[in-house]
């Protein structure tokens, strides 16, 4: 892929349009929210806002990791399977207390991420196939670990994490917010963040500049695995059941959509953390409005398709991949 945007984009654009592009997601999010409230004033109620935050938290956690991976010109399809893995082990270790169960889940998530990262960094397998193999294999493994069937979860601490709120905001949303802040610092303020972006933008140059390219790639997939495992814990806690066969299915596509709607280019070389948050919220609101107004499944899909295209078009800076 060429590093320079082709001719059409090199041409000057009105600054106003540029600004719109840069902040398009936020605008789209605002418009959608307004529309939702106009359609039904109940949308503003505290209960409703809380529900939306509950539902968006796991997707957002996964999307944060995905944004980092995408920043290195990669993609991680295995996040859903990592969630399944977390769902498989949490019931096994929850007897030891929530921290232990969380630690085991996160450690396994890290291992899963490392496996993908190693394939990408060392063997130079293309990320989409490396993580596709993991996606299939890890989900199978998850079912092997603790049986394929769903297990009810009764641990108080986990249920509290999954469904309680602090200051009216769900604990899971606080957790997601903390991860957002950490990710933002990581990307914008640390050496690692710079290296990540450089690796995504021009890998050969980054290597010749002496950057630890492999370590960056490994770390990024590892972080994605860790965040996915956290998301798994959140999903299990909120649903009060652990279902390795089904939990986390298709979440990778939701996360990728959120990241890209948020303005991070799939070609790598740039990560927009806040944009990702806006993207995830945007997709969540779309789904909420459609479900709450009882739109049939067929139309829901079509509307979502159109909305995704429009939002990405509005927020894209350049259109590679």
């Amino acid at each position, binding site marked *: 892929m060429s590093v320079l945007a082709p001719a059409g984009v090199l041409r000057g654009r009105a600054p106003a349009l540029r600004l719109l592009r840069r902040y398009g997601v936020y605008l789209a999010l605002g418009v959608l929210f307004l529309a939702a409230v106009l359609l039904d004033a109940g949308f503003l109620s505290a209960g409703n806002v809380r529900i939306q935050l509950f539902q968006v938290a796991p997707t957002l956690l996964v999307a944060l990791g995905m944004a980092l991976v995408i920043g290195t010109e990669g993609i991680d399809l295995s996040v859903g399977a990592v969630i399944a893995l977390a769902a498989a082990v949490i019931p096994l270790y929850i007897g030891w207390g929530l921290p232990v169960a969380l630690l085991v889940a996160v450690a396994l998530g890290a291992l899963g991420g490392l496996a993908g990262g190693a394939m990408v960094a060392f063997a130079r397998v293309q990320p989409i196939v490396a993580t596709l193999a993991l996606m299939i294999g890890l989900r199978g493994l998850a079912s092997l670990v603790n049986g394929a069937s769903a297990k009810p979860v009764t641990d108080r601490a986990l249920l509290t994490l999954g469904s309680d709120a602090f200051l009216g905001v769900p604990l899971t949303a606080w957790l997601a917010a903390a991860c957002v802040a950490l990710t933002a610092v990581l990307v914008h303020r640390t050496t690692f963040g710079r290296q990540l972006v450089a690796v995504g933008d021009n890998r050969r140059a980054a290597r010749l500049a002496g950057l630890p390219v492999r370590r960056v790639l490994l770390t990024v997939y590892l972080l994605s695995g860790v965040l996915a495992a956290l998301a798994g814990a959140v999903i299990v806690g909120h649903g009060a059941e652990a279902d390795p066969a089904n939990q986390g299915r298709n979440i990778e596509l939701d996360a*990728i959509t959120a990241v890209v709607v948020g303005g991070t280019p799939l070609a790598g070389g740039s990560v927009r953390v806040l944009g990702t948050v806006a993207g995830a919220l945007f997709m969540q609101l779309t789904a909420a409005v459609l479900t709450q107004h009882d739109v049939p499944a067929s139309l829901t899909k079509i509307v979502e398709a159109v909305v995704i295209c429009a939002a990405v078009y509005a927020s*894209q800076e350049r259109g590679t991949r």
Partner: protein
Amino acid sequence: MTPTAPAPTATAPALGAETAAERLAARIQRHGALTVLALLVLLASVFSPGFASTDNLGAILGNNAFVWLLALGLTFVILTGGIDLSVGSMYALGGVLAAWAAERYGTWAALLLPLAVGAGWGCVHGLLIARARTAPFIVTLAGLLGARGLLQLITDEGADTHLVPRGSAFRALGEGTWTPVLISAALFGLGALLLTRTRFGATTTAIGGNEHAATLMGLPVARTKALVYVLSATLACAAGALGGARLGSGVTTVGVGYELTAIAAVVIGGTLLTGGSGSVGGTVAGVLLLSVVHNLIDRSASQYGSAVTDTVNGGFLAAVVLAQALLNRGRRDE
């Protein structure tokens, strides 16, 4: 050019050192999927009784031949550095449209309607990607949703199933083992010709290799990019229609996840996801390899349940791509 121009010397001096063994090794590397496939078929024929039977091979070929066409279209898309996630949905849509049209208007409509809808839909993808410069991943992800939505809309949320009439000539297109295989083989052959022996094919590869350069060289970049998506969607819809002819109905739930299998097949076939390098022949090897692997895992691991099958499946896929990446290692610089 003077017609008497001397024939070029075979290689640059520096390369004269390459030995025959190295050339063979390079050849095996270049056709990694084919090599693995050949080995696997050989081993399976020896160790898995009944694998090499005509019935089993016929089952592998006949039932998958149309699905493989998705990988053919994707090869072109991926060569430009793009991606098409909508092929699975388009496959299902093609089947439903064909059955619906066959029920009502007969064979020709059953063939033409899916082609027309596929081309139109692909055109929308192409314009959004090539003209509006929206990321292919997202456009076709929306396509995946949209096509599924449309197909549910025309089947009353999936409640209606349209059947291809029993006597319809349309059914003949999908019957048996050899009709599907021949149709697919012919299309793959045409695809190979299109890729290697036309300007369209050359432009496709050039765009993936260096889009900026392709633009500066004055190649019709936007048009070719758009056409590639038209080709992919049309092929997927046609494959779905033919699949519908084979199944005898427009199955609404079919095709879920086919895009990922097709992408895996293309990549295993040696086409770079970043574009610019790949071949139709590689894709053929890729789809065959995946089908054979699935067949073998089915035969040997089915009785242990889905979890084991999935784990083995993922492990095998990882092993294959790893083996390939390692084989390819020597070829890449850095």
